């Protein structure tokens, strides 16, 4: 990158900003079509039951009702993962959580639709209920699916951990619990379907993964994918909560097919809580051996995931709870056993950090305790176990760039962590933690050998550039990333780029806004496409400027000779020459991640073309009378690779800190008799403006060799260290260990009055994991 960058690295106003501040952004529920009907879904009031009958007669007879659907109308099962095709758009035989869809209505308005739902009579026969991990394992009676409530169990070992733990100087074991919580996007999910008389279906939906919705619609509705168009509308917040296939998307489509009229379904806030697919409750046991100096010899990790009623992304979630341990620390031998249980609650899935905030909480609080036992400070312990750039972990994850040391040193210095932590005023404490995260999953959720992201560019003869890509902006700023990268390569301005995104009829594939993949993958595709267009323009410009194309530079809407800026032509002139000579000036680019999976079953979850790293220091102020924990200040350093737009990256970090604090201190999705305890924005506590701490963000740029202009991810990684840093700060402040998220005032008070000075789980349930698969380890770890 010898040339100076003019768009990349600048805190420019993102392309969709003015639409957003003017209220012109059209979210899914803002859309309306002539003759549009409104759909509503009847949901199970039982956590686990056989459906004996569904009587829709009275609903069908209600004036203003145009269609009623039940399970038999949509019999084909689906699921986001090919291995978990266990959902029905409308349950036909069994309901597995309160909120499971049973029937649907299309009516003239939502009031009539609601009235119709109330007229549908469902007879249930109750089945045994499994409301948590232990009950699901005990599994007495009919299981939720198949032969047992065990959805997925894995057991992997890399090197002989037992031997290493035996000979370690110091061994510690901890058991911790991370309660489930939900994404809570401010926009409720909505979908609008239109079915034309020629058999073409169009679905507008608030989805992070329009391509996967496209595939599911084809399967469930038995329509050729060429007759289905999915348009993802800008998401009013996603955080992973709109990356599954949802019943209302399939039902809206089917209702549109049944009535021949457009049908819109917008979920109520309560339905959003029950649709969920959020953070799994996870019970974990971690055991680590250390040398006297604090160097890890081996780790054994167990996770028990409370999965809810369906598979969703759960197989991936299970692996993720064990995948990144040896990435954040250099762990020479590692054992992971994980199990996901079906329970009679809304399905869990991916929320920001997908399956990794829970183990992060376990490891970072565990390490805080170990550091104290070894007489080391928490920073020193981390620095003794750093992963290396350009290396491979014991479970075969390839690390390219790694700025973890810099992140650690930066937050420690800026917060004066080591000096201040020993002399905090009463009730005040500082906590420290580190983390790492993927920059995009290295494998697609269904097996294929095609690119993960593709971009097409078409140059207008006046110099404007149309950029088409399947990526959907969910607020993270992906539109900006695409435009900035293309503009940088072509040497034009951000507003010369016109974006068309996330429309399966028009845009080439992007797999979706999940796993922090868009900047890296769609960004690389945009870069490749722009480089092709630039090469074509340089070819014609070189002839006019009488030089070699290699000598040319594109910048400030000019194409000129490097070192001879007077030999120049406007970008638009080069376009005109190229178009006159050969027709439409266009180019496409695509990105396929390198094949990185290790040689063992289950190696597909964890590999990523690059990893981000973060470190955080959190300051807390604990009210010893009420147990309330306040967070006045947070320091986060994040290895971003390169910030394509610093203001957007800082926004992702601050948003991550916010969401982490909510999870650490108050957010929890819990149930009583199968019912959500807090399915409203008032009862589900989340931080407000008043709880906002002072946030210091430090961007560490390691310029990843494979990232577009060196960029890595920012959307998820910075959330990870903050939660355990809060717990460690609480210990520093008042000397109690809250080994259970969220850290509520009740738990703090209980720990302070208890002899153990701790609140947390006592152990893990008896469970027989599968026989350990002893995987081969990379050469560099052999014999260590």
């Amino acid at each position, binding site marked *: 990158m010898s040339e100076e960058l003019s768009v990349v690295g600048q805190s420019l*106003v993102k392309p969709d900003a003015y639409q957003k*501040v003017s209220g012109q952004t059209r979210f899914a529920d803002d859309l309306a079509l002539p003759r549009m009907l409104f759909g509503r879904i009847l949901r199970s009031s039982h956590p686990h039951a056989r459906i004996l009958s569904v009587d829709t007669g009275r609903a069908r007879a209600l004036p203003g009702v145009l269609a009623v659907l039940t399970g038999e109308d949509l019999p084909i099962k689906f699921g986001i993962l090919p291995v978990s095709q266990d959902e029905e758009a409308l349950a036909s035989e069994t309901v597995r959580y309160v909120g499971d869809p049973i029937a649907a209505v299309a009516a003239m308005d939502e009031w009539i639709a609601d009235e119709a739902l109330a007229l549908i009579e469902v007879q249930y026969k109750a089945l045994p209920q499994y409301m948590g991990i232990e009950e699901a394992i005990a599994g007495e009676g009919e299981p939720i699916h198949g032969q047992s409530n065990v959805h997925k169990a894995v057991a992997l070992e890399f090197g002989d951990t037992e031997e290493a733990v035996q000979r370690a100087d110091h061994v510690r074991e901890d058991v911790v619990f991370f309660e489930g919580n939900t994404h809570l996007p401010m926009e409720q999910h909505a979908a609008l379907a239109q079915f034309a008389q020629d058999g073409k279906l169009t679905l507008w939906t608030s989805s992070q993964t329009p391509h996967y919705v496209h595939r599911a619609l084809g399967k469930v509705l038995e329509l050729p994918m060429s007759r289905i168009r999915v348009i993802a509308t800008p998401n009013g917040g996603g955080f992973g909560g709109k990356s599954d296939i949802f019943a209302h998307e399939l039902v809206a489509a089917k209702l549109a097919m049944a009535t021949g009229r457009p049908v819109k379904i917008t979920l109520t*806030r309560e339905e959003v809580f029950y649709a969920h697919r959020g953070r799994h409750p996870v019970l974990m046991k971690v055991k680590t051996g250390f040398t006297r100096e604090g160097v890890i010899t081996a780790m054994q990790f167990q996770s028990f995931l409370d999965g809810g009623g369906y598979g969703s992304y759960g197989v991936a979630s299970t692996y993720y709870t064990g995948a990144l341990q040896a990435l954040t620390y250099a762990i020479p031998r590692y054992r992971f056993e994980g199990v996901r249980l079906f329970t009679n609650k809304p399905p869990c899935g991916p929320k920001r950090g997908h399956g990794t905030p829970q183990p992060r909480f376990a490891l970072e609080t565990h390490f805080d305790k170990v550091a104290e036992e070894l007489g080391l400070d928490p920073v020193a312990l981390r620095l003794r176990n750093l992963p290396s750039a350009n290396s491979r972990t014991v479970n075969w994850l390839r690390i390219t760039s790694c700025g973890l040391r810099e992140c650690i040193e930066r937050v420690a210095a800026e917060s004066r962590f080591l000096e201040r932590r020993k002399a905090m005023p009463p009730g005040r404490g500082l906590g420290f933690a580190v983390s790492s995260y993927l920059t995009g999953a290295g494998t697609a959720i269904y097996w294929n050998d095609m690119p993960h992201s593709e971009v097409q560019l078409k140059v207008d003869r006046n110099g404007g550039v149309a950029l088409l890509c399947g990526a959907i902006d*969910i*607020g993270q700023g992906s539109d900006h990333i695409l435009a900035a990268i293309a503009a940088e390569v072509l040497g034009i301005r951000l507003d010369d780029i016109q974006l068309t995104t996330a429309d399966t009829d028009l845009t080439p594939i992007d797999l979706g806004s999940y796993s922090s993949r868009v900047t890296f993958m769609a960004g690389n595709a945009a870069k490749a496409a722009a480089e092709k267009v630039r090469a074509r323009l340089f070819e014609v410009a070189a002839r006019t400027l009488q030089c070699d194309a290699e000598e040319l530079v594109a910048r400030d809407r000019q194409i000129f000779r490097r070192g001879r800026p007077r030999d120049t032509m406007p970008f638009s002139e080069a376009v005109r020459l190229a178009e006159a000579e050969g027709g439409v000036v266009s180019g496409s680019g695509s990105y396929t991640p390198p094949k990185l999976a290790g040689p063992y079953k289950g190696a597909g979850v964890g590999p990523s073309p690059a990893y981000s790293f973060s470190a955080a220091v959190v300051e807390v102020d604990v009210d010893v009378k009420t147990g309330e924990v306040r967070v006045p200040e947070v320091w986060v350093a994040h290895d971003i690779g390169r910030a394509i737009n610093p203001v957007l990256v800082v926004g992702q970090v601050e948003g991550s800190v916010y969401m982490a604090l909510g999870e650490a201190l108050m957010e929890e999705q819990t149930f009583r008799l199968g019912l959500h305890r807090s399915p409203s*924005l008032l009862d589900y506590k989340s931080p407000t*403006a008043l709880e906002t701490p002072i946030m210091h963000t430090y961007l560490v740029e390691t310029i990843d060799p494979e990232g577009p202009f060196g960029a890595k991810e920012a959307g998820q990684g910075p959330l990870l260290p903050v939660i355990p840093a809060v717990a460690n700060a609480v210990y520093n402040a008042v000397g109690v260990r809250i080994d259970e998220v969220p850290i509520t005032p009740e738990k703090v008070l209980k720990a302070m009055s208890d002899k153990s000075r701790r609140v947390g789980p006592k152990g893990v349930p008896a469970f027989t994991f599968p026989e350990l698969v002893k995987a081969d380890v990379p050469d560099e770890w052999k014999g260590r």
Partner: protein
Amino acid sequence: MATMDKVPVRLRVNGEEAAVMVAPYKTLLEVLREDLGLTGTKHGCELGECSTCAVLVDGKPYLSCLAMPLDLESREITTVEGLARGSQPHPLQVAFAELGAAQCGYCTPAMLLTARALLDHEPEPSRDAIKQALSGVLCRCTGYAKIFEAVELAASRTEHPVV
């Protein structure tokens, strides 16, 4: 309910008179979005808990999901569509765009209007006053910090009329 007659409502929205026939059970939120085409006003709960639907009524933040249009005849209603002067954005809109205070943009209309009510009343608010004023509006994306900074930037750029 299905056949309930519509009633005439006369509203004043963003300085314009709007006379519409609406179902009498519809909230102001629904009338704005569905009958007047002002979809800039969003909904987050429709229970008065998140303030996503806030508009200004006579300059003060007002939850449109709890308001009945018939009660608001002759009052001055402002939605996000009424913030700009023609195509000239309000200083708050410029500041929100520049500082990345709108990520997904869904809470943004309510944040902007609530901030505008604050600045109209208190042209140079402290950080604490901004936090207090915006504390009822939930945002899940930004962590609020950029929103505070944007309100401060807009305040610093606005020339205040001498009272």
